[in-house]
């Protein structure tokens, strides 16, 4: 394969092929756009995190002594809005998906590079809009915007914030359309559907959910705005509307949205488990099918958020049983990952630590989800800290663990640099411990009687709340460490060769960082994904057309 070099003989790749602000802001390269997204979502993650710091500080004591109730309500609302709409929903698809989908399928770019860039701009406009609303005073409705509080009673910047969310929806949709078309049309010759990495399947399913669900929340936001501005009675009974209608519309999008957040993470975990056990993933078709099943069933269970909102008990039963069904494909995935570890060659590299953390925490999140879907249990724990703990186990313990695992796995590919092994493992452990300390006590709090969204709480709940606040401090430190060493590594990290983990996949078959157009020659694929063969020592991977290095390599490489 021929490498292009610059006049000094250095290898050219997507990072050094072009210089200057303009070359970034007008780039159409999916890899650069992924990095732009990485910067944007990291900023929103930090802002959302700051608000969480405010929340946990306030809750360290039962009295409302740190901030005013009104401020507290704005803190938890903005925390939810930023974390869900501006961090978690775009996180894995817009960063890792953007970077990796073309690489994994042997394409030069996404199908619509300009749309891809547009989606980043739209995302930022939406973000700035929302931040502007925060600067004006923020919003206090909860990220769920329940009516008629949001349409009639709240004295905060509901419309501005909701429009921010509305605009961000367009960026999700553009990304999703781009992924779907790319996956359909741009696979390398020979790369059939069942040869695709599971990461691709997960993103395909996620994109479908985004395209089908996002318009519903968009229309709902417009209706909220219409009622709030023009007093058109849709949701407020005083105007002849129905407040529960809002909940149906909201959860019709927002339940599937939880799968927008978790499916990509599951895709990442499938890649990690295969690469760090050097084994073909067990039950490939079951995992792929489970992604699609979750995407479909996910649209049928929204009513489990409304068991106590005057919905009939029969409707409650239907939504309960459907929610139970959606847990089955999740269980299938978990068991298949574990079966893959059986007789694998299990490495304890940092990304694998995150993958194992993901499986454990997602399991707890999923099983407590099953408890919530059990009507007789939900009647007591609905809208309490039990629910708060449940969804943090899934979204932070699950989705964010997967995101971090993926970032650690593909960082050498994205930047061409390695990060410090010790610190990265240390951070992974700190995050795991801090996470559990923060959120496990909340299960107990919820069952004991602490409702969510409480600024002031009875004194007998203090011990558990202090534990949670202490855990949040540990977790916060855990998140800062990778931030530091990732930035550090970009300049000082050892150079990575094309395949530092000895993994199989087209993305490892090109330089680190990849050349501007990904591959010098488009590969022809005649093998299944994850074709680690036991009788072929990792050294001779070239024989199936994929570069697997002679040794796992953390040394400086010729690439430099």
């Amino acid at each position: 394969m021929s490498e292009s070099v610059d006049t000094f003989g250095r290898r050219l790749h997507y990072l050094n092929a072009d210089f200057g602000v303009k070359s970034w802001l007008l780039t159409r390269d999916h890899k650069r756009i992924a990095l732009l997204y990485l910067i944007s979502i990291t900023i929103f993650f930090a802002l959302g995190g700051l608000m969480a710091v405010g929340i946990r500080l306030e809750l360290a004591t039962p009295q409302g002594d740190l901030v005013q109730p009104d401020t507290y309500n704005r803190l938890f609302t903005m925390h939810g809005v930023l974390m869900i709409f501006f961090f978690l929903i775009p996180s894995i698809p817009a960063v890792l998906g953007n970077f990796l989908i073309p690489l994994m399928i042997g394409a030069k770019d996404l199908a619509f590079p300009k749309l891809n860039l547009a989606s980043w701009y739209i995302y930022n406009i939406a973000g700035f809009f929302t931040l502007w609303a925060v600067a004006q005073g923020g919003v206090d409705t909860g990220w769920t915007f329940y009516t008629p509080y949001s349409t009639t009673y709240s004295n905060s910047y509901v419309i501005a914030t909701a429009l921010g969310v509305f605009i961000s929806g367009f960026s999700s949709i553009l990304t999703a359309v781009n992924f779907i078309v790319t996956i359909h049309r741009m696979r390398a010759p020979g790369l059939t559907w069942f040869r695709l990495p599971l990461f691709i399947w997960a993103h395909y399913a996620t994109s479908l959910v985004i395209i089908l669900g996002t318009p519903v929340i968009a229309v709902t936001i417009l209706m909220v705005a219409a009622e709030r501005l023009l007093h058109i009675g849709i949701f407020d009974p005083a105007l002849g509307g129905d407040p529960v209608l809002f909940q149906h519309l909201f959860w019709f999008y927002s339940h599937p949205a939880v799968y927008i957040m978790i499916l990509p993470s599951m895709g990442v975990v499938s890649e990690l488990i295969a690469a760090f056990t050097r084994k073909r993933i067990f039950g490939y078709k079951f995992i792929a099918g489970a992604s699609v099943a979750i995407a479909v069933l996910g649209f049928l269970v929204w009513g489990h958020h409304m068991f106590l909102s005057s919905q009939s008990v029969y409707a409650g039963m239907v939504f309960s049983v459907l929610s139970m069904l959606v847990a089955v494909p999740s269980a299938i995935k978990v068991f298949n990952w574990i079966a893959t570890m059986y007789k694998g060659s299990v490495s304890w590299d940092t990304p694998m630590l995150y993958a194992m953390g993901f499986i454990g925490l997602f399991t707890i999140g999923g099983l407590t989800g099953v408890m919530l879907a059990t009507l007789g249990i939900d009647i007591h724990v609905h809208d309490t800290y039990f629910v708060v703990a449940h969804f943090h186990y899934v979204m932070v313990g699950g989705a964010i663990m997967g995101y971090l695992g993926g970032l650690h796995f593909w960082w050498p590919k994205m930047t061409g640099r390695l990060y410090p092994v010790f610190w990265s493992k240390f951070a992974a452990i700190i995050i795991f411990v801090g996470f559990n300390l923060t959120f496990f006590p909340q299960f107990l709090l919820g069952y004991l009687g602490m409702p969510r969204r409480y600024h002031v709480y009875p004194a007998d709940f203090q011990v558990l709340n202090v534990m949670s606040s202490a855990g949040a401090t540990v977790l916060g430190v855990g998140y800062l460490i990778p931030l530091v060493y990732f930035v550090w590594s970009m300049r000082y990290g050892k150079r990575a060769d094309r395949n530092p983990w000895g993994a199989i996949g087209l993305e490892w078959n090109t330089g680190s960082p990849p050349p501007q157009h990904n591959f010098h020659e488009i590969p022809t694929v005649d093998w299944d994904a994850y074709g680690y063969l036991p009788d072929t020592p990792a050294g001779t991977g070239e024989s199936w057309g994929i570069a697997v290095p002679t040794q796992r390599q953390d040394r400086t490489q010729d690439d430099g």
Partner: protein
Amino acid sequence: MSIWPEQFPLFPDRATAIARDIDAIYFFGLGVATVFSLLIAGLIVFFAVRYRRTSPDEVGQREQAPAWLELVWSIIPLGILLFMFAWGAQVFFDARRAPADAVEYYVTGKQWMWKFQHPSGNREINELHVPVGVPIKLIMTSEDVIHSFWVPEFRVKMDVLPGRYTDLWFEVDKVGVYRLFCNEYCGVEHSLMGGRVIAMEPADYEEWLGSGQPQTTLTKSGEQLFEEKTCNTCHLGRSFALGPSLNDIFGTEVTFADGSTAIVDENYLRESILDPRARLVQGYQALMPTFQGQVDEEELVLLIDYIKSLSEGTGASSTGN
């Protein structure tokens, strides 16, 4: 007697039979969650140690787990899930369906307080006195946004919505003072919208009722209001009256001009008073004026209670769901 330190309880006290049912299924769910979490965590750790990579070139072994496992781990969880669903649904039914002989109290939530009306006519704010051993049904509505009524020791909870009635019932079996929380975010002072439910021996309760101002029962006050608002001019119950008779209608089926039908419950009565033209009873003209804005939530409750009393003996009692 317990080894667990008392100052760190893991679940609230149980003061109703439903609380015991809910705890039972909760403990079952917790057991399932614990067993599976430990199983999965244990397998991860075991495999990670047992099959730890020993040389940088090592590749996983060819041998795979047997494929029939896919069936095992789909069907076993499915069975457990369906069992939990069925048990949960049964408990939920018991918790949501008030017994026919439940005594009805009315609750109005508003930012940020709870108002209670006893059948005897006593009124309270943020405190509700109830007798133990008597099934009590709360018929609830909100004057503004959505609230939610929750007493952890009773394990019952229900959203309280503006513009309609929802209901919740409990039968306390332990004298005591129990915390009441608003469980649906409702604005600035949501976390302060609490109160207490005070469960007393029936005799003490009677005494407490009598200790305040002499009261007129809800039904009596409703009857007065029925005359004051001149409802009785049309709803006399005679054949030449302009409006349908209200005797013995509660719980029965009513037919509308367009042929559709509905069961007469609190929500239907509410609609008929506030928005009489929404659904016109077959055979009558759209003559009734709206009383929207002329009766407040507490008066509305009086009228409804009175109309229900006209059906006493037919045994019907229901709140629409």
